[in-house]
């Protein structure tokens, strides 16, 4: 595990992103340098508008950087692909497909054709269906497989979104505030589920969040970003808490409280958000 953490898997080198707007160029990000190891869980935290999601979209390949390079598994990121699955902020399920069909869409694309995943042969329909059911089972939604997104709750939709991403067995799982729109209890439950799933699959995860507790509970590394425009990485905090982690025992763990304090200190003292009017 410790040697795994030192190897570079995802490399972000001198990345800057400038958006063209009607009022001229808007610098969103500058001088981003970050390495993520295989199996590492990284949280990106910062005030809204600091470019966390912009950075995640760059890693996903949905946008290309104005400057710098992004490398994943020794290959330059040239565009989006199923090896870097995204769990979107607003779940983005297709409303006309059932939960099963939404997950199956990704499974079919990755495993239903030969040559998409290196060295893997095309799987038959029964195997694809089994994979889809396994993914829905993992997030506890077997019973809702035949329901449409409009018929299930927000938390369940988000779980289908996670199932869709995990079912593709991505090398990197990218999550954009996946639990941001949920109530506190549902959020806690899904965080615990995510911890268990990641412990099983050893996934590499990059998650955007604005929730301090979520970041400390889930991550190996918290990347704290300065305020935009032209945001950059302010500080990287390594979280050395043993796994498996339990929110109940961590609640009065001094190390946990120190990490929490460090993040809060960064966000509210050193990067106190100035509301523009």
């Amino acid at each position, binding site marked *: 595990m410790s040697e795994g953490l030192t190897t570079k898997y995802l490399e972000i080198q001198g990345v800057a992103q400038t958006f063209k707007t009607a009022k001229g160029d808007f610098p969103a990000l500058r001088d981003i340098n970050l390495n993520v190891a295989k199996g590492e869980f990284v949280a990106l935290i910062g005030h809204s508008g600091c470019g966390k999601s912009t950075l995640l979209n760059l890693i*996903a390949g*949905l946008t290309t950087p104005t400057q710098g390079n992004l490398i994943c598994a020794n290959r330059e990121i040239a*565009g*989006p*692909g*199923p090896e*870097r*699955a*995204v769990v*979107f902020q*607003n779940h*983005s399920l*297709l*409303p*006309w*497909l059932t939960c099963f069909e939404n997950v199956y*869409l*990704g499974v079919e*694309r990755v495993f239903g054709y030969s040559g998409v995943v290196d060295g893997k042969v095309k799987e038959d329909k029964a195997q694809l269906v089994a994979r889809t059911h396994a993914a829905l089972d993992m997030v506890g939604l077997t019973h809702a497989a035949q329901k*449409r*997104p*409009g018929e299930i709750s927000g938390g369940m939709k988000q779980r289908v979104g996670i199932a869709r991403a995990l079912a*593709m067995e991505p090398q990197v799982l990218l999550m954009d505030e996946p639990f941001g729109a949920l109530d506190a209890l549902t959020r806690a439950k899904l965080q615990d589920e995510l911890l268990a799933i990641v412990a099983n699959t050893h996934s590499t995860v990059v998650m955007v969040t604005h929730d301090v507790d979520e970041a400390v509970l889930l991550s190996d590394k918290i990347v704290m970003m300065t305020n935009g425009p032209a945001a950059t990485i302010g500080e990287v905090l390594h979280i050395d808490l043993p796994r498996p982690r339990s929110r109940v025992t961590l609640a009065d763990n001094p190390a946990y409280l120190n990490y929490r304090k460090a993040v809060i200190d960064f966000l509210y003292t050193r990067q106190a958000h100035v509301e523009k009017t």
Partner: protein
Amino acid sequence: MSISLNKQIVTSIVAPFMGLALLVGLWALVSLSSTNNFPSPADTFLQAVEVFSDPFYSKGPNDQGVGWNVLSSLKRVAMGFGLAALVGIPMGFLIGRFDFMSRMFNPLISLLRPVSPLAWLPIGLLVFKGANPAAIWTIFICSIWPMIINTAVGVQRVPQDYMNVARVLNLSEWKIIRTILFPAVLPYMLTGVRLAVGTAWLVIVAAEMLTGGVGIGFWVWDEWNNLNVKNIIIAIFVIGIVGLILEYALIKIATAFTYEEVKS
């Protein structure tokens, strides 16, 4: 409970009937005070019973039952409208998907759309050399605009989130069209179809008045020449009811294909 139920009955059943009664009342008043034999509601009703007792008689091309007239109008609408859908919906997709196409066709659409479809009737008569194809041509012209425009708007409004899903999953263009674009655009397309059918039904009556032959519009004009005002009033009701049924059927189809996220 029972009070609110009564209130519901009053608003949902009594109110529409009062509206209808108002119409019949005004009509009766007009016919009483009129000096030129404007038919009363009762006379018209008796005439309607007679007309509808044998809607499918045929005594030569100029004297057919009201049923045949409505059917031949519907047939023209279906033909012109079907052709418009065949051309308009794919065009809408192209215009919505490619900026170049949109810039190429938008000036043409803006220029031609405000023209009354009847202005195209002489062109149809000239080119097709027949009343029936000219009427179909007019329906084609009037129903193509709403279908092109609504389909194009639907394609342009496909949420970026869905397209991002397609990009992350690396779906093929055909799969994107089938699983994302088409279902997302369908409600907009059906709105276009609904508007097109409404306009087509408005226009067919006018077009048939000009072209003659068999059809509900021709029937109206023919009865005017016969000075049979009762039949004209019956025709107005028939046209209204058929239009209502078309509209209602298409609304039903549209709701069946509209999903939660698309509605909002």
